[in-house]
Structure formats: C-alpha cells, structure tokens
C-alpha cells in the first residue's frame, strides 16, 4: 500500500471559524469597565512607571466572580486568554500561563489580537525580526536566527522592502515617549511569542486544517440555497429517532465504563505525555508491545469491537483462536477488512484470493457461514467491489462475538495475559524536571518507517499462516496441490491434521475421503472439466506432475498414518454425505517435507481404502469418472489444480454449504 499524502490541497485556504476568539474579546471588553472590571496598578520600572498592570490573582478572582466558577477553572480560563494573546505576562514572557500570585500582566492592544480573518504574515515577522536585530545589535535567539535565515532565503525578493520598512518602523517608534516605547516593545514581543512560538512550547493558535469555503463570506441566497435547506429538512423529518431515555441511558453507560480510561478526565498512568512531555505512556501502549498494561487489558473486556480494534488484543485473540483451531474466522475477518480499506486496483485479486482461501469448498481455511450468505457472497464475487464480503464478514463477526469472545475471556490465554499485565507507577515530576522534559522532546518515528514495519509484520504473518489448521470440512489430504495465492508454506500438514483428528473425533471428517481413489478421481474430473473448458494450464500441470506422483504416493502413505480405521469407515458411511458435501475438490497446500507421522501404519490402511467402491464417496459432484488405473498416473503434483473461482469458470458448482 502506498503512503498517501494526507494533506491534499483541494483549494483549502480559508481559516476556519474560531469561535473562542470572539467570545474572548467580549470577556476582555468587560474587563475594561472602570466600575466592574479589573483593577489595575502601575508597574514600577527603574526609570518610569507604566500604568495598567494587573496581577494574576486579580484576573483569576475576577473570572471566578464573573462566571461563578471555581478557582481552578478560572485559572484555566485565564491561561487560555493568555495563550491566545489577549493578555500577556510582563515577567517570564515566554510561558503563556496565568500564575495565581502577584505576577503582572497587561492587556494587548486590539491590533495585536488574534483574528480569524487576518492570518499572521511572514512579511510582518521578517520585519519584526529585522527590527529586533537592530535593537539587539545582531544578537537574536537561536530560533529567531533560524527563522531569520529561512525568511531571508524564501522572501529574498522582498528583502529590500523588509529592511527599509524595519528601519522606518524603528525610527517611527522612537518618536513616542519612553513609557509608550517600552509598552510597544512588550506588546510586539508578546504578539510574536503567541504566533511564532519558541521551540518547546505549545501554541494555542493551532486550528487544524484550512477550509474550502470562506466562513466570513455571506452565502448568496439563490434557489439552490433554498433547495438545500428543503432537502435538509425533509431528511431530518425522515430520520429514525431513538427515545431520549434510551440514548441517554447508552451515553451514561458509555461514560461510566470509559470514565477511568480517559486520559484527560482521570489519571493516565504513568503520566499524560501531553502534560508532562514524558512518552512512557505511549511506549507502553504501542501496538505490538509484549506485555500490555492493565488498563488496556481491561478495555478488551468492554466489548468485542474494543478487543479487535486494539492490535495487541487482536494478537491475543488470534493466539487463543489458534489453540481452538478456529483461527480462520479471524483471518477471514481481517482479510475482509483489508479488502474494504485497500486500494481499488487490488480489489479483484484480493477477492479471488479470499474466495480461494476461505469460501470455496475444500478451501484450506474454510469458514462456516450459512447457505444463504454464501450464495449471496459467491454471486456478488462475480463483480467484486469493496463491500461484497460484508454479509459474510458480519456473520463471522457475530459468530466470533457470540461464541469465541466469551470463551476467550474465560480461557487460560486471557487469564495469563491479565496476570502478566503491568500497572506502571505514576510519575511525579517537579517543575524543574518538567522543564527538562519539555526540552528533551523528540519527534517520534517517521510514519514511513512505521508503515514499513507494519508491512514487514504483515508479510511475516502471511508467511507463517498456519494453513495447516484445517477446519473440519477441509480435505486434509496433505495433497500436493498448491493454491495460486500462497507460495510457501513450509509447515507440514500432517501433524496438525493428526491433532485435528484427535480434537474432533466425532467429526465425520472427509479425511478419508481425501484418499487416493477419490482424490485422484476428483482431480481427474477437475482436470477433465478443465480440459473441457479448454483450460490448458491444468492439463499441462497434470502432465507435468506425473513424475511427482511417486513422491506423492509415498508422502501420502506417510501422512495418512494418523487416521484410525474407525473414523475412516465412519466417514465413508452415507450419512456423512451432508457433512462432507462442502468439502473440496480442492486440495490443500502441500507440505514440502513429510510429516513426523510414523511410517509404519500406513500400509494396510492404504490398501483398505483402495477397495472402496466409488459410490461410497461422499462428494456429490464428481461421480462419473472412476478409472482407478489412471489415478496413479494423474496424481496431481505441486500446483496441479487450482481452485476455480466460480466467476472464472463457466461450469457452475453446485454450491452448498
């Protein structure tokens, strides 16, 4: 998947409405009232006295009184006013917070107020830096120097103007009296601290992305305008409604559940990185961390969606499903998600791949969905689109949610995870440490690197797929057919099939069915069909694989060792018909190495199977061709027969399932 450039300019160049600005201006105007506003005091400097200085505690007290709020909230409100630039601190001018003591602040002049319609221009900043350069005789702060050099490079064509204007503004400023000059310098500096913040500080003027429509422009009243309003009201009438008692109840429940988990509403262990600049919280909660935190694990118990949406939770669940041998459900769900959210160009091949792996009869990781859904899905797959697998995906999701999720929460896997989960201690940083933290801030890993890591992870997972975890209806013959989709599956099918058998003894496994005679006949039938269609590939493959038939034979002998005669015969009985009807004409992935099955047991077993008359075969589809002589010859080799997707072949399969 390519990395998309998220910031695509679709003509977005209008700053959004910033409602807080107009509201703050009103508050500020109220503060100016000589009777009910803030009381100011003069600021005594060495040479002069400058009036209209206000103390932090006065501001907080006034806000608390005016809005009837407690001091903590008044303090945050005051800090917001300072951060936006309406009030600036006289001491410690770089930290834009309100200190609830006698530190002094002053109001900013309306020209320097933040506005939505006048963006802060780089030209003005360049002029300011040039003026500052003059005043400080060339000694600028580091970030100012960087900005200066950058602006000099990018605004070079205007640089004469900037220098001239800086000098003129400097001279014009000197025309005023000394106290006013001081005030003006402080004002301008405060303005630029807000709009070009020094590194290591957070700016309150972040407003997100620009908008396409100018919020300041008036909308023209045209027939289109009225039409839009009409459509909107009609849709509002038709909207389905929920009783407020129900919706409020849901909201209350949600808040109660998630209250402790919200890092802004309650404590965040060890500490909230946005507040303390310490990133332990993020490192502990990374997607692929070994040991999750207790809070995270607790979230997994809230709902199934929470479990799946958390990568670590999903891994845990996958591990559990692996132990239960129903990992194909999750794999199918993930594959559907991939299809939904992936590129449009790859939809067709992904859909085919999914069909071959999960949906087709005899697929290696066959999932259990009901007949109707399967029908709908297969029909839809003829013309695949993003949401073609939605019904199947929903079905599997609900299956997992109702069935596996409950068992997962009681399973030893989960209990183990809960036991091992860590609960970090809370950080207690002193002010000095906080400052140090803010200086030590570093950018996180580049998203390009993260994306690469993700892709590697995914490739690794795809390579390690335990395709050997066959479901009950898969033909577990460790046959040598290989899917066109999968390339290398080094694991042997035999041992899992053995364990699989042990797990499901009652399963009328079509394992037996997947023996020589039937499989070969099937194979030949398929080949025949393939030939009938004029599919040259199958023919060629079949021909080419004759040489491998010997090896296949011996392999099969080895691998069949696990099947007990009992199950074999049981499976041969006609009542297994329905159960096995969905099993495959398709052979699962062949192992490269023979399994560890004991070689001794195979002989008799093998011979028994050979004598079974073809009528006992369970597969309904291929019943015609029975030449058992040719079965040896036409043993399929690696990649002999591909799964034919129904929309590829003209022959329709009698899909059941």
């Amino acid at each position, binding site marked *: 998947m390519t990395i998309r450039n998220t910031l695509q300019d679709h003509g977005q160049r209008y700053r959004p409405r910033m409602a807080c600005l107009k509201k703050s201006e009103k508050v500020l*105007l109220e503060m*100016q*009232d*000589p009777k009910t506003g803030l009381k100011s005091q003069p*600021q005594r*400097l*060495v040479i*002069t006295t*400058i*009036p*209209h*200085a206000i103390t932090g505690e006065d501001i907080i007290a006034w806000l608390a009184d005016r809005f009837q709020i407690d001091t903590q909230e008044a303090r945050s409100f005051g800090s917001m006013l300072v951060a936006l630039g309406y009030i600036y601190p*006289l*001491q*410690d*001018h770089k930290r834009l917070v309100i200190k609830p003591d006698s530190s002094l602040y*002053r*109001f900013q*002049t*309306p*020209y320097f107020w933040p506005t939505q319609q*006048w963006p802060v*221009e780089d030209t003005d900043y360049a002029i300011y830096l*040039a003026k500052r*350069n*003059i*005043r400080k*005789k*060339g000694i600028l702060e580091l970030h100012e120097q960087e900005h*200066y*050099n950058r602006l*000099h490079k990018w605004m*070079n*064509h*205007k640089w*004469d*103007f900037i*220098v*001239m*204007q*800086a*000098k*003129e*503004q*400097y*001279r*014009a400023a*000197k*025309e*005023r009296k*000394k*106290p*006013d*000059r*001081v*005030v*003006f*310098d*402080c*004002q301008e500096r405060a303005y630029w601290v807000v709009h070009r913040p020094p590194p290591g500080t957070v700016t309150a003027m972040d407003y997100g992305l620009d908008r396409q429509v100018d919020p300041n422009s008036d909308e023209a009243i045209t027939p289109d305008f009225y039409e839009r309003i009409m459509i909107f009201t009609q849709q509002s009438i038709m909207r389905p409604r929920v009783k407020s008692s129900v919706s409020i109840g849901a909201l209350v429940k949600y808040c109660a559940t998630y209250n402790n988990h919200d890092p802004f509403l309650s404590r965040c262990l060890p500490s909230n990185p946005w507040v303390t600049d310490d990133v332990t919280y993020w490192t502990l909660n990374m997607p692929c961390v070994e040991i999750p935190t207790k809070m995270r694990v607790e979230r997994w118990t809230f709902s199934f969606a929470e479990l799946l949406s958390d990568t670590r939770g999903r891994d845990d669940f996958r591990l559990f499903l692996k132990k239960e041998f129903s990992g194909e459900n999750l794999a199918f769900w993930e594959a559907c998600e991939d299809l939904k959210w992936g590129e449009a160009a790859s939809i067709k091949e992904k859909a085919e791949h999914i069909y071959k792996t999960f949906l087709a009869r005899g697929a290696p990781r066959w999932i259990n969905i009901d007949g109707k859904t399967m029908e709908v899905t297969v029909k839809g797959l003829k013309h695949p689109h993003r949401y073609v697998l939605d019904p199947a995906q929903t079905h599997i999701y609900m299956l997992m949610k109702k069935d596996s999720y409950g068992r997962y929460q009681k399973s030893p896997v989960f209990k183990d995870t809960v036991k091992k989960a860590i609960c970090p201690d809370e950080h207690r940083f002193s002010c000095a440490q906080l400052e140090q933290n803010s200086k030590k801030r570093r950018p996180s890993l580049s998203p390009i690197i993260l994306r690469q890591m993700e892709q590697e992870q995914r490739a690794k997972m795809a390579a390690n797929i335990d395709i050997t975890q066959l479901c009950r209806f898969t033909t577990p013959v460790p046959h040598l057919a290989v899917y066109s989709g999968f390339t290398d599956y080094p694991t042997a099918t035999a041992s899992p099939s053995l364990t699989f058998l042990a797990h499901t003894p009652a399963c009328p496994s079509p394992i037996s069915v997947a023996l020589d005679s039937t499989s070969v006949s099937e194979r030949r039938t398929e080949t025949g069909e393939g030939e009938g269609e004029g599919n040259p590939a199958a023919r060629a493959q079949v021909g080419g694989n004759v040489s491998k038939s010997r090896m296949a034979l011996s392999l099969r002998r080895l691998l069949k060792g696990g099947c007990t005669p009992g199950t074999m015969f049981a499976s041969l009985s006609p009542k297994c018909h329905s159960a096995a009807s969905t099993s495959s004409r398709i052979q699962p992935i062949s192992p490269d190495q023979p399994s560890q099955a004991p070689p001794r047991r195979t002989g008799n077993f093998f011979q028994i199977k050979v004598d079974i008359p073809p009528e006992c075969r369970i597969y309904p589809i291929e019943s015609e061709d029975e030449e058992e002589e040719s079965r040896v010859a036409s043993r399929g080799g690696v990649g002999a027969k591909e799964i034919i997707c129904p929309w590829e072949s003209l022959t329709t399969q009698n899909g059941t399932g």
Partner: protein
Amino acid sequence: MGKDECKTMLDALNKVTACYRHLVIALGSTSDSQNLREELKKTRKKAQELAVANRTKLTSLLKDKSISKEDRAEYERLWVLFSSSMELLEVDMKRSLEIGQDFPTKVPTRHFIQTGMTGSTTTVAARAMSVQNMKYEADSNIDTVDLRDLQTEITQVSQMMEEMEMKVQVAPWAVEAKQEAGAELKSNMSVGNSSVGVISICEEEPKEEEGGGSRDSGIASVCAVFVFFVIIAVAGVLGYLVVNMS
C-alpha cells in the same frame, strides 16, 4: 533622473506606511482619542497621494521598452518595493476600519483597552506628514464620518492594486534584493544608545539577559548615586574644614 525621483518617493511612501502602522496599533487602546482618528485620516490621505504618484511614475518607467536590462531590473526591484508597501497599507487600512468600528470614541459604555500606553501619537503623525506640529481641526463625529470615507478608500486601493497587477508584468519572485541578511544593522548609527535604555526597562525578570541588563543598570545607577553622595559629603567636609580654617 527617474530612478532617484522614484527612490525618494518610495522612501517617503515607506515612511508613511511605517507611521500609519504605528498609528493603527494605537487604535482601541488608551492612547486612542479623537486626535488619533484625525491623524489616521491625514496620514492615509498622504499615503494615497504618494501611492498614486509612485504608481504613475513607475508604470511609465516600466512601460518604456527602450530601457536597458539593468535599468529594467532596477525598476522591477522598485516595483516590488512599491507593491509590498501597498500590500501593507491595504491590510492596515482594513484593520483600522475594523478596529475603528469596534471602538467608537464617543460611546461612553465602550471603554478602551487599558494597554498601558497613555501618551499621544502626535509626533508619529508629524513624522508621517513631514511637518513640525500637527494641527487638529476636525469635528467631533470624525470617527463615524471617517469610517465611511475609509471604506471607499479601501475599495479604491484594492482596485488600484488589481490594476497594477494586470497592467505591469513584473514577476516579483524574480527580483533579487540588493541588501543581504543583516543589512539593517549597518547603516543605522543612532541605534546604539537609546535602545539600551529601552531594553533595560522592558522587564524585570532576573533570568533574562535583558533582565540581567536591567539589574546591572539598576546596580550601576545605585552605585552612581552612592558615589555622588559620597563626593558631596567629602566636598561638604572639605568646605567645612576650609571654612573652619579660615
């Protein structure tokens, strides 16, 4: 020569733009008053006259096809100077309209923002108008009347700028500046003394280097005063002895 004329006119425009900006900054604060509005009006008018004059001169120079390449480059540079000045002027005018509407002078319930600036801006305006003293003769309702004029003037300026862009084909990004980085430090000799004073009283935070400067200068002044008194005391003692002796 055309170039020198242009340059002097551009300097004048530059000066007026800078002064206008200072005046607009004072709008809405406690140093606002009726006089300020009048100053704004006068400065604006002057700026517009200069702008028109500059524009005609520069357009005639640039339209002349027979000039040399270096001349053309120089005129283009002057043109960029002119257009940047006009941009600043336009923005300042629009903002002064906004702030002027928000802070009418005569409404008693509407209070100015207590910014700490209390002095008047006469000197700035005088500098802009290039006169010694400003004369104020406007009526009391200048703020409302003026705002209407201001709106028309803003539209005029916007139109002028659009015309400029259409008629004159100058690529602003192709112009190379003559001044290098840090050029503002060189020619301004009067920077030195008074600015130190400005820095020292700007804050009282001991952590800042400026605060350090303030503390140093504070200590220096205290020491100076102490030395002064010591000398006075010594002089007094000596005088007393002289008087006693005689």
